[in-house]
């Protein structure tokens, strides 16, 4: 028995060391740099400035602007992803043939690199050479829309891209949830007089609650880390209207070289994401949440 524990620890140690070295150490480093000021020349050592970065960040309208933009994207994308994803999941659930092939095709957007997704939608939304304007002009006779350089269309473009990339994933997770509902239970509901949409409302939706929560939390994390799509589609414009948290963090760190303030912002993001993650863990660990 002793040997067993020792063996197990030996097996886990490399991972633990690696995660500490490149997971925990940077975190500590980040907290340390969050209280430093970095001179423009990397040869000069950073200086401890206490809470100055925090105060600066708290005073920074662009920081709050980026949070606000992220929040807007989050609210719209998440609702669309959950509603459309659930609709798609229900559709996939009710077909018998060809599900594997369809799901593979639907998952392509999720499997594509975010940077490529950004490129694709940047091309599609291009005012002159993009497919969307071409479609609008040719079929509806609408004047071309300057999608990516005007508000609110720039934000809409980003939301469309996010929805495009992640809705299939949401749908597949929810489909996995649907398949855990015993067929007998659905049959029983029909026998008991629940019509199609009442089965949905009284049986399916309540039983899917844990799956909605889990996939919702995963999506929150995805959207908080959003960088590539806005970076490529709008480059933050017009003005700073589409600068989301990730884009602003990059700007702080690598355009303004204000590494101290960027670290402070990272600390903020890590804390926010950890809260989301903790919620997720609670959910997953709570066995009663899973449908048996």
């Amino acid at each position, binding site marked *: 028995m002793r040997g067993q524990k020792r063996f197990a620890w030996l097996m886990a140690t490399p991972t633990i060391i690696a995660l500490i070295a490149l997971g925990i150490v940077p975190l500590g480093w980040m907290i340390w740099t969050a209280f430093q000021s970095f001179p423009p020349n990397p040869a000069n050592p950073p200086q401890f400035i206490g809470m100055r970065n925090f105060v600066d960040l708290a005073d920074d309208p662009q920081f709050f602007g980026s949070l606000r933009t992220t929040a807007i994207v989050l609210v719209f994308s998440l609702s669309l992803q959950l509603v459309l994803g659930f609709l798609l999941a229900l559709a996939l659930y009710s077909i018998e043939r060809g599900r594997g092939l369809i799901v593979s095709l639907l998952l392509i957007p999720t499997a594509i690199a975010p940077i490529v997704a950004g490129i694709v939608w940047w091309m599609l939304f291009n005012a002159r050479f993009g497919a969307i304007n071409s479609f609008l002009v040719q079929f509806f006779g609408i004047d071309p829309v300057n999608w990516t350089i005007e508000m609110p269309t720039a934000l809409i473009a980003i939301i469309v891209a996010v929805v495009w990339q992640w809705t299939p994933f949401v749908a597949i997770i929810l489909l996995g949830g649907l398949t855990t509902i*015993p067929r*007998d*239970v659905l*049959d*029983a*509901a*029909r*026998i*008991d*007089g*629940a*019509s199609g949409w*009442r089965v949905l409302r*009284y*049986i399916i939706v*309540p*039983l899917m609650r844990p799956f909605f929560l889990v996939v919702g939390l995963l999506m929150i994390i995805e959207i908080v880390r959003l960088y590539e799509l806005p970076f490529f589609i709008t480059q933050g414009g017009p003005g700073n209207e589409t600068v989301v948290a990730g884009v602003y963090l990059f700007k702080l760190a690598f355009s303004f070289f204000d590494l101290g303030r960027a670290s402070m912002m990272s600390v903020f993001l890590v804390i926010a994401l950890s809260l989301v993650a903790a919620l997720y863990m609670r959910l997953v660990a709570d066995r*009663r949440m899973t*449908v*048996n």
Partner: protein
Amino acid sequence: MSVLTLKNIAKSFGATEVIKGIDLRIDEGEFVVFVGPSGCGKSTLLRLISGLEQADAGEIILDSEIVNDHTPFERGIAMVFQSYALYPHMTVAENMGFPLKMVKEKPHAIAEKVNAAAKTLQIDQLLDRRPDQLSGGQKQRVAMGRTIVRDPTLFLFDEPLSNLDADLRIEMRVEIEKLHKRLKATMIYVTHDQVEAMTLADRIVVLRDGVIEQIGAPLDLYDNPVNKFVASFLGSPKINFLSARVVDVGEGAATLSLRNGARFVVPMPTGDVKKDDALTIGVRPEDFAISGGDFSIPFDLELQEQLGPVSYLHGSSNGEKIVAEHRVRGKILKETASTLGVNSARIHVFDTSGRSVRHGRKGQET
């Protein structure tokens, strides 16, 4: 309570024909049990009646109305599933009240009916629990409660007791019987369990490969099976089959001989039987006796299973397997049981196609 008529019902899943033209009439208040080997289409037939599946052909008539296109609910049918199919996120009370909520009953009326049903099923102290806090037997009662609150015209049960242990099975079986007596409702019940079939049914429907082999009262099927399949399906241990040959055909009786040469005369219709025909005789285990009978067969005892009041003697006769029932306590010697006596009046006779040409108890009754 209602009359159910099935007219030439057929159902296929893709290319496989699962139900192949079923005609059946079930009277008001009748308790009908479907039995048959696994995969013969019992559940499918039940689901067709309930409206969970659509029939490809034929008519399903409730009272005098064709209900093929009606939803399960419009048919006014209640169903108990093998898995109980309780709603995991609802309490017992909510589970039982769900059908009433669906017809927009007032909350207090729902509560009243649920309480009444819970009392009769002795689950009134469980009303606030969720299904995952219930034992198998309790879940079973809740599932039944959910069906009775809505006062349905027809009850369907798909192997409702098969997930329970032996004691609970008996208890719930009696419960269902009482329920039937009290509600006088029409019930259709699918089971694998012979005892359930024999004890509960007014009539048993034996299915094989999507067709009805025979319909009848339990003892009638037991005594007068129309073919070898039905004969072997009912009765435990199974009926024994021995090959025989026709030696002589007389008026209303034939002389048969067994492999060992034993000859005996059986009264039977002789229209289709000729001399030298190969036949099969069927003898139920309880129709053997160590001494007595009007002819006997050699027996090679291999094993005696003692169950208390009876014991089963496993062995063979001229290479054909035999199980005989023995109603005397105690170990029996191989030599003592070297022959088994048979009462020729009680044997079943089947022709080469398996069709019954003579039923076992006929002679006795006359």
